């Protein structure tokens, strides 16, 4: 099962994805992995990571870190495992802006490698940001980044069994051709509330 989860900032996508991975893992035998792809640049990133760590504390995730080459973790994953990748956004960013320069890469190939590694697991949940509704003039490099990310999204979505969008903690399924039931995941996700309460904003 491959689930692709999209959403804007603070849409509930990470928490929904964690819920999906947890429920899928409960119904299988293998390990539960969290593949973190972000390379923290500043205090704000560290805070974000701290929040995410806090949000999955006690859930039983084994954290793996790989920011540029997902193939490096390929040997770890077995056919019984469940893996959550958060996020495609930072993975594409790390590859495109590797070592401070814009890399000319084949992003369809990059997406293909991602899917083939993730497909080794029984279940994979992949998180990405929907950042394509932008009014500001964002500059050439960022436009190129959006193009590449959009391409990667389309490839993952075409391979995924389920494509879900989180919007203000609501979940909309854009694709579910095999009609998998996500009722258990949704009801588990709806029972979670602690992530909604920040004490800093």
């Amino acid at each position, binding site marked *: 099962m491959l689930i692709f989860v999209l959403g804007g900032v603070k849409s509930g996508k990470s928490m929904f994805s964690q819920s999906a991975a947890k429920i899928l893992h409960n119904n299988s035998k293998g390990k539960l992995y969290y593949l973190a792809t972000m390379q923290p640049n500043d205090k*704000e990133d560290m805070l974000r990571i701290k929040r995410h760590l806090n949000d999955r504390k006690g859930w039983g995730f084994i954290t793996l870190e790989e920011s540029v080459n997902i193939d490096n973790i390929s040997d770890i994953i077995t056919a019984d495992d469940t893996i959550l990748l958060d996020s495609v956004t930072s993975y594409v960013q790390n590859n495109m802006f590797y070592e401070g320069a814009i890399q000319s890469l084949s992003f369809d190939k990059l997406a293909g490698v991602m899917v083939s590694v993730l497909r080794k697991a029984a279940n994979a949940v992949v998180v990405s940001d929907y950042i394509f509704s932008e009014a*500001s003039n964002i500059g050439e490099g960022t436009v190129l980044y959006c193009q590449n990310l959009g391409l990667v999204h389309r490839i993952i979505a075409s391979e995924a069994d389920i494509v879900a969008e989180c919007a*203000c903690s609501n979940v909309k399924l854009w694709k579910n051709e095999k009609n998998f039931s996500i009722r258990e995941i949704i009801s588990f996700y709806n029972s979670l509330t602690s992530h909604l309460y920040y004490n800093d*904003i």
Partner: protein
Amino acid sequence: MILIFGGAYQGKYEFVKSKFNIRDCDTYFCSEDKSSIDFSKKAIINLELFIKNILKQGQKPIEIINKNLFKFSDKIVICEDVCCGIVPISYEDRLFREAVGKILQILSRSSDEVYRVFCGIGERLK
């Protein structure tokens, strides 16, 4: 509570007016200059501007909304979705976006009905 959100200029207010029979006199219009909401009105529009005002004052909008959540229980709340663009360059803009996103999640959880308005069309999400 009924929550309506969507991008700018998508016809959120028009949708509310026709679907829920709301007139201007039933609506409280939030603004960047006002730090209060008139809860005697049936509908509250531009909640994002209220959030911006609270942030400008160095206060915590998520905390304020949570504390006053009960006051929204019989309201129609309309808010712009500002969460689907590139990460903004300025820290204040990033904070604003995150606050709006989190507040929309909180309101949505407490709402009986949730609609996203896209090109004037209301899609019911909850």
